Each structure stands twice: as structure tokens, then as C-alpha cells.
């Protein structure tokens, strides 16, 4: 009897559920600014913008951490460098100077975002090439060390404001859009997030993504199959850094300000908390985690200035009892598997 049951193929349920959930989520995100206006809560729009930007950063970190098994504690470096690229390019633009005597400044959003991703990608290539020779705790520590080095570098760079950071008087320009308008900027960030999440979904589903998952489970096993783990991990780390750089560039635009705060190790920690809160190694987990943390921060700071005292237990409860973060919790509530 038992044997027969084993031979019977288990029918694979067609995965309409996740697709539907994604569609509903997308629709909700599109409707959100209009709903906020209608409800007389326009301050929700910038809040949601912040959540989206952090979602991009957290999703990028999740590619390295969740899918690649690389616990990077230095993603603030890429997030911050993305912000500084926007700030520095804007500074050269307003001063009408060539940066390093070579690069003209710009306030074009498409250019600054691309430049931020390139810079963050290059930085990730260097940091990754060195850090990925280690693993485990050493990897965590070395990525943290690199990020802190960059933090102190920018603290001491007086040309770029040092401790005080750089003010970006106006948001970057995108075609004829009024990026100063909160709703417009929200949709710019939503578009960026959509592209990012779509891209990550493609990567995870590709052969590259499968190999990455295999490496996470056992590097040795992958090596014995003729795959050099180092190159795959480095590639994933660079893509992850570029995503964080994109988020940083958007954040600098959103805040119209960039400072070493964006490079601080607590920012790396925040990104990690978002990933863990939402669900490590899930596609939409980082979005949920980022939204949850941004909302919690807003709600709790209105209540007490020691909001982190409340956040800690909440995080503990989520980690201990949801077995896979908010994403897993939602899935179970939805009656799915």
C-alpha cells in the first residue's frame, strides 16, 4: 500500500495564488496615493515612498543574504555610496565644475541612478572580491569593516560636508515630471521597485539563481559538479550592491540630503532586520519587512522616543513564532501551504 502511494505522482498545484497576491499587491500600491488623498492622509505618501525605497535595498540585500547565503553586514556602504553619487553629482552640477576634472555634474535622475548603480557595483566588486574569500562570521565582520571604513572616509571628507552631509537643493529631474510632487516621486520609486523586484524574480528563477541556491546549500557539492562558487557568489554580490546603490540614490533624492548616516553600520542592521522581519529568501518578504519597519518606526516614535525598546520584542516574536517572517505568516493565514 505504502509503496503504491509513493509511486503515485503528487499533483503539483498550479501556482495561481502567488500570482494573484502579487497582482493585488501591485494594484494596492498603485491606488495607495489616491486613497491617501481621499482619506485626507497625504502624509502616507512620503511614508510609503520611504518604505518602497527601503524595500529595494532590502530586496537587494536579500539576494545576497537569503538566496546566496552571504550574510553581508555592510550593505549600508552600497546604500550610502548610491546616495553620495547623487549628492556629489548635484554639487558639481550647481557649481558647474568637472568632478575630478573629468565628469560633468548632472541633475538628471536617469543619469544619477545609473551612475549610483555603477559606483555601488564597482564598490561591491572590490569589497566582494576580498570578503568572499572568507565565509561565516569572518565574512560578516569583514563586510562590516569595509562599510565602517567608508563611513569614516565620508565623515572626514570636508569637501562633501563631512559629518553634516550634503544638501541637494532640488530633486533630480526626470523628463518633464514634477519630481518635487510627493505623488509623482512615489510613482517614480514604485516603478524602480517594480523593475527591481521583477529583475530579482528573473534572476532567482534562472539557472544562475538555481546554482546560487545550490551553492548556499553546499559549496563543496557545487564545486564537485564543476561550478566555481566564488564567481557566482561575487556576481550575486555585485548585483546586490547595485540594487542597494539604486535605493540609496532614490533615498538621497527623497530626503534631498545625504550624510554619513546612510553609511553607518546601524543602516546595515536595519536592512538586515527588514529582510528577517519580512522573510529571508522570499521574493516579497523584503517589501513586507521594509513596510513593517517603516510603519512601526513612525507609529512607535510618535508614542515614545525609546521606540527601539518596543521594536526589539516585536522582532523577537516575529522571528520566534512566524517561522519565516511576515511572508510565511501571510501565507499561513491565507490557508496556503
Amino acid at each position: 500500500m505504502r509503496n503504491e502511494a509513493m509511486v503515485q505522482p503528487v499533483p503539483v498545484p498550479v501556482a495561481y495564488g502567488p500570482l494573484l497576491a502579487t497582482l493585488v499587491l501591485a494594484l494596492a500600491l498603485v491606488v495607495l496615493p489616491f486613497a491617501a488623498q481621499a482619506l485626507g492622509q497625504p502624509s502616507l505618501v512620503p511614508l510609503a515612498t520611504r518604505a518602497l525605497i527601503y524595500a529595494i535595498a532590502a530586496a537587494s540585500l536579500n539576494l545576497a543574504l537569503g538566496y546566496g547565503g552571504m550574510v553581508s553586514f555592510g550593505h549600508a556602504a552600497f546604500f550610502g555610496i548610491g546616495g553620495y553619487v547623487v549628492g556629489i553629482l548635484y554639487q558639481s552640477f550647481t557649481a558647474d565644475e568637472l568632478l575630478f576634472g573629468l565628469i560633468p555634474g548632472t541633475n538628471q535622475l536617469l543619469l544619477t541612478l545609473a551612475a549610483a548603480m555603477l559606483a555601488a557595483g564597482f564598490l561591491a566588486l572590490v569589497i566582494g572580491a576580498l570578503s568572499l574569500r572568507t565565509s561565516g562570521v569572518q565574512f560578516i565582520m569583514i563586510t562590516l569593516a569595509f562599510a565602517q571604513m567608508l563611513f569614516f572616509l565620508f565623515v572626514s571628507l570636508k569637501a562633501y560636508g563631512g559629518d553634516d552631509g550634503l544638501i541637494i537643493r532640488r530633486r533630480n529631474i526626470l523628463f518633464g515630471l514634477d519630481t518635487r510632487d510627493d505623488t509623482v516621486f512615489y510613482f517614480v520609486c514604485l516603478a524602480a521597485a517594480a523593475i527591481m523586484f521583477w529583475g530579482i524574480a528573473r534572476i532567482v528563477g534562472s539557472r544562475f539563481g538555481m546554482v546560487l541556491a545550490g551553492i548556499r546549500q553546499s559549496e563543496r557539492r557545487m564545486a564537485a559538479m564543476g561550478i566555481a562558487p566564488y564567481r557566482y557568489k561575487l556576481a550575486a554580490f555585485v548585483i546586490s550592491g547595485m540594487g542597494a546603490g539604486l535605493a540609496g540614490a532614490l533615498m538621497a533624492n527623497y530626503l534631498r540630503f545625504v550624510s554619513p548616516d546612510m553609511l553607518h553600520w546601524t543602516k546595515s542592521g536595519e536592512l538586515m532586520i527588514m529582510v528577517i522581519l519580512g522573510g529571508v529568501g522570499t521574493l516579497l518578504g523584503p517589501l513586507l519587512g521594509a513596510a513593517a519597519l517603516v510603519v512601526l518606526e513612525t507609529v512607535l516614535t510618535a508614542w515614545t522616543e525609546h521606540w527601539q525598546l518596543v521594536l526589539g520584542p516585536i522582532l523577537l516574536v516575529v522571528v520566534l513564532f512566524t517561522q519565516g517572517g511576515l511572508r510565511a505568516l501571510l501565507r499561513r493565514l491565507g490557508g496556503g501551504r
Partner: protein
Amino acid sequence: MLSVRNLQSAYGASQVLFDVALEIGEGEVVTLLGRNGMGKTTTVRSIMGLLAPKGGEVSFDGAPLQAATPETIARRGIGLVPEGRQVFPTLTVRENLVATAANRLRAGDPWTLERVYQLFPRLKERAEQMARTLSGGEQQMLAIGRALMTNPKLLILDEATEGLAPVIRAEIWSCIETLKARGQSILLIDKNLQVLKRIADRHFVLEKGRTVWSGTSAALADDAELVSRYVGV
């Protein structure tokens, strides 16, 4: 094709292999026999570069393999089906097969997903299932299929039938015979003398890290008593 001479290996201070010799020719099926703890898996790990040998020679197609990384050795055309199967549990059956698939040596008649499914129809039935939900025998088939998808010149099967039901074992043996008929070179590590005598061309017996006996299946039949004392379970 693969030639191992005077191989010595150690885990830290404790030496496990003292003098292992092994020869495998094109299209041959060769076995590595011996009781548990005699160094069979250590030999495989040394060949694959998963453990750096202390001494001796390992060469594949005339080129030395010592000091090469596991991935380079695999890329030269050795496909390993490791002991304990070791499929990737969070990938589906199909993903396990295609993730590492390659035809690096430009085999004229490469393995495809369809051909692996032909060899193991059960894998096709379970193509979209997570590998961790498979039974032991199916995981073994998947591990073999995964190795075949890299189109290896030499396939190494480490304890491929250990812990499997007799029916499943028979299925794996018949698949190995099919592969042999196709001219696939195979190194088998197993304890099932009766079947191995029939399938394999030549045998090497390990005892305490040394190759103590080698010969053809006919010679094995003649020396049956001696060999079964070495291998005897």
C-alpha cells in the same frame, strides 16, 4: 583514462590512504571494493580534489590532477555521484538537473533532460517536485541524472545502492548496465559482489588504505574466497 598511483591522503594528522592504485580505461566499468573505513570514499575525495592528497599521482587523460580545484577536476570530465546522494533539497527535480548541466567537452551525443527522463521515468513524473520530497531511491536517480547532465567522461558512483530497497537497487543496477552499454566509463564503489561481478570489468580491493588485490571479474571468481575475506560483511 584515470590512473591513480601510490596515492596517500590524510585527514589532518591521521593518514587514511597509504598506497592506493587504480586504473580505469575508456569505456570500462571498474569497482573499488572494501569494508567500511578502508578508504574508498577518501580515495574518491582525493581524486575529486575535495581532499588534497599527501602524495602519489592522479592523472586523467594523461594530465595530472593533483593540486587542481574540485571544479577544474569536474570540468575535465569527472562526474561524481556522492555518497548519501546530496541533491539540492530546495530545488525542484528539473532545477537540480538543469542548474549544473553542461557539455564542456563537446560530447557528440550529449545528455538532455528528455534522455535523463527516459532513463529514469520517475524523475519526469516528479519534475516539478522539490528534491527533498523524493524517496531515497528517487534522490539517488536524481543524483545520477544530475551527474550525467554534465556529460562526464568518467562517472563515479559512491555507494549508489546503499540503504535502498532491493527493487530500487535492481533499477539502479539496470541503469548502470544501460550506461555501460552506451560506452560510459564508470567507477563503482559498492559492496554487492554478486552484482558487481556481473556488471564490472575489473576490480580493485582496498584494505586499510592500500590496494591489496586487483583483477578481472574472472580472476575475482577464482579468488572468491580471498576477496570475500577482504570485502566480507
